[in-house]
């Protein structure tokens, strides 16, 4: 079975557009403290995807930071979806900023793929007006297979031409595999269904591009990499129709809710939507399946309908379904009473002011809501890592760190990071927990650059697993640091050294000459708190001449280990004839 011919419309950096970025205004959208989208001006200022908030601010101080809100994204994307819906009967939304539709019918009607694509893209450009200029214009790609069409759309958007025709990329029928073949494997990450680990592994095995990967025997790929590998292989070969392993649902798997009186409140409709979603999910779960695509249709008393197709390759939970329904209805109807009144108000000076009003805000409440599963697959669950997985203890610890930062300040809640050094106080450095990736569930998130609208928890769960693995890798044994002190290390380290007085048997201060000879054996130590102890044994001097190339940070000191008769062991140092207590072996 040949894959269907699909068109993908891709609006780059959509969250930035939804955030209302003006032309030449640096804007970055953050999710879980990471930049997930940025405007062209911010990109010119050095802001990259995946940066932390502080890094982004450091690179581009004038950047405006916006917290990501999927609801805003979808609301803003609604006009675009409506525009495309004028040309094609059914569109499929993956996330805000990207939509897919079958080209067979529309292309015949409008006289070919290219002609149809240019019309659609021109209409989208008109709808968006200047809004897109901050993030770059949209692109439209047509190809056989979902992945190829997506790659084509993203490549098309990169050309950035002002003419719509420049930003259309049509891959000839049956040419998807040759179109994908020379591209690097990295593109697989973009689809969000393939993990970084898999791509890196395949690359390490010597497979350089998608063509080489697709040339491997399918059975061997499945045997070596399992189902995710097989899915990636199908994508690379340009033969992916739907996520691997999915099937058509049992006939008539739909849930419908009729309302006796038109419902005008969003919350009430969404509440019914939750019941419908649970009904669908439960019916499927009874046969061990999960829904990966569903269509939700809302209809008003006057016959206006809103129909949207939603996909999620990992499968929808009832909550995820309800989220999609809310996005759809919020963008379409804006059912709150005030908006409805405005729309119906005959005295409204200019009803055409609002583009949505022209596009058809429903004139009355909703009387019917319908959810239909259109694609299901066996529910294999999400496999959590056996090792390096994120445990409940990790979640608790992260929450506690956040809470503590709120109590005593961000800078005071710290984790230890190894950096190496000669002195015990140099070996580790305390770093604010908020700056460390150790407690960050979103660290090293796969495809963080485009996971904008993927509102369900699956994406972040994968990211957490990778973060934990990265942390475990750094725990490997390190070779000894030249000039460092031998094991065992002192349990108490004074970051601000305490002044000491060390005298010899005749009460004279012990000194160390420039050539490193000790004036006399240390006999007594006097600590600043008044205590004095006799030295039982000692070793030293161990000379350190640090950073002699740097005038300001040059240090020259001699270190001693002192063991007093009461059994306490100290690490002391003499620098410019002054004794300091560096650490205590307690």
């Amino acid at each position: 079975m040949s894959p269907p011919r699909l068109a993908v419309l891709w609006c780059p950096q959509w969250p930035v557009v939804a955030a209302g970025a003006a032309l030449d205004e640096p804007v970055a959208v953050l999710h879980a403290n990471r930049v997930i989208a940025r405007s062209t001006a911010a990109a010119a200022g050095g802001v990259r995807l995946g940066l932390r908030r502080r890094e982004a601010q450091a690179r581009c101080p004038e950047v405006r930071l916006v917290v990501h809100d999927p609801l805003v994204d979808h609301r803003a994307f609604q006009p675009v979806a409506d525009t495309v819906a004028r040309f094609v009967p059914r569109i499929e939304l993956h996330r805000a900023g990207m939509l897919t539709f079958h080209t067979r019918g529309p292309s015949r009607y409008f006289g070919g793929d290219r002609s149809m694509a240019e019309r659609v893209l021109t209409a989208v450009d008109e709808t968006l007006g200047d809004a897109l200029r901050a993030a770059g214009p949209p692109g439209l790609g047509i190809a056989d297979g979902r992945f190829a069409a997506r790659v084509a759309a993203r490549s098309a958007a990169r050309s950035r031409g002002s003419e719509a025709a420049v930003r259309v990329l049509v891959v000839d029928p049956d040419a998807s595999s040759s179109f994908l073949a020379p591209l690097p494997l990295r593109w697989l990450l973009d689809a969000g269904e393939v993990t970084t680990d898999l791509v890196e592994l395949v690359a390490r095995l010597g497979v350089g591009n998608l063509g080489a990967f697709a040339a491997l025997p399918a059975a061997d790929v499945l045997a070596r990499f399992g189902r995710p590998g097989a899915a990636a292989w199908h994508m690379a070969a340009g033969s992916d129709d739907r996520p691997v392993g999915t099937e058509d649902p049992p006939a008539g798997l739909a849930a419908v809710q009729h309302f006796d009186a038109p419902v005008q409140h969003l919350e009430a409709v969404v509440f019914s939507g939750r019941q419908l979603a649970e009904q669908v999910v439960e019916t499927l779960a009874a046969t061990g399946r999960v829904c990966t695509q569903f269509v939700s249709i809302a209809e008003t008393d006057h016959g206006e309908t809103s129909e949207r197709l939603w996909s999620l390759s990992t499968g929808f939970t009832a909550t995820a379904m309800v989220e999609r329904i809310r996005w759809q209805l919020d963008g379409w109807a804006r059912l709150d009473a005030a908006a409805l009144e405005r729309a119906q108000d005959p005295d409204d000076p200019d009803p055409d002011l609002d583009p949505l009003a022209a596009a058809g805000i429903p004139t009355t409440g909703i009387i019917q809501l319908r959810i239909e599963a259109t694609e299901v697959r066996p529910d294999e669950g999400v496999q959590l890592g056996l090792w390096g997985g994120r445990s409940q203890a990790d979640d608790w610890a992260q929450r506690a760190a956040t809470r503590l930062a709120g109590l005593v300040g961000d800078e005071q809640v710290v984790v230890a990071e190894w950096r190496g050094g000669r002195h015990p106080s140099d070996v580790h450095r305390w770093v604010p927990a908020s700056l460390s990736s150790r407690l960050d569930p979103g660290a090293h998130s796969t495809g963080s650059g485009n996971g904008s609208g993927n509102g369900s928890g699956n994406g972040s769960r994968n990211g957490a697993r990778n973060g934990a693995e990265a942390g475990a890798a750094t725990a490997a044994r390190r070779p000894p640091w030249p000039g460092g002190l031998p094991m065992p290390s002192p349990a108490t380290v004074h970051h601000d050294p305490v002044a000491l007085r060390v005298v010899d048997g005749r009460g004279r201060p012990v000194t160390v000459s420039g050539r490193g000879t000790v004036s006399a054996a240390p006999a007594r130590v006097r600590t600043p708190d008044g205590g004095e102890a006799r030295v039982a044994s000692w070793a030293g001097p161990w000379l350190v001449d640090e950073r002699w190339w740097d005038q300001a940070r040059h240090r020259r000191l001699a270190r001693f280990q002192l063991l007093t008769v009461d059994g306490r062991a100290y690490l002391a140092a003499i620098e410019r004839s002054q004794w300091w207590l560096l650490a205590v072996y307690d």
Partner: protein
Amino acid sequence: MVAGSTSLVSPVSSGRGRPLRVVDADARARLAALVPRLAPATMAAERVVPVHDALATVLPQGLMQGSTVGCTGEAATSAALLLVAEATQRGAWVGVAGLSGLGVQAAGEAGIDVERLVAVRRPPDRSPGLLLDDGTWGQVLAAMIDGFDVVLLGPEVQVRPSTARRVQARAQPRGAVLVLAGEVPGFTCDLQVRADAVWEGLGDGHGHLRARRMRVEVHGRRVPRPRRDELWFPALDGGITSTSVTSAASSPTSPTSPAEDSRESLAPVALERAV
């Protein structure tokens, strides 16, 4: 449970109609093993945080969850680190407060997974005694108890006894273990660990600290008679063992003296470089 009971009964009942009363000794033993698992209540003694093997003599059951353990003596900080080590190896997180001079390297050598250490340090511009007021300390400690499995507190924690009592009461249901390194005012300890040290390896102007014999004494409310042991912490080879463990048992792991050992380990590296 169902699977366990069927496997227990089946060899008996399937034996060609033999009477059920003839239960072999093996089955009895398995039945006895099931009793604690089937018991409805969890005894407090079973909710424990495991400790390092070297402490098996003095703390055979580990640290009881919700309890407070105080460490005193010359090696109080090291002892506290050793108490915490095994828990972090098993995925527990450690929150540290009031120990601004904690030696992270020493923590790692004691066996703590440093990746699972989160510390609250004092604001830089205040003196140690005036870190935070009593109420804030209470909130900080409560948040730590809620979030971390083990909370390590140092002498810089300054709370009133009433706050300390509330904090300890909160640790009970949550199952967090409070470990006090040194004297922390206000807290009452369920268990006292006293650790004194004798260092070896340091001469009169030569050598360096190499090994420590740590005398550990544990006493407390649930310990009728103080338990004592002596540990090598660390031993010459860097390991942590009880000195009561015979040297014959530990010798296979360290057949050579450290000096020879290091020379041997250097040789392959040099070879590799040469190749």
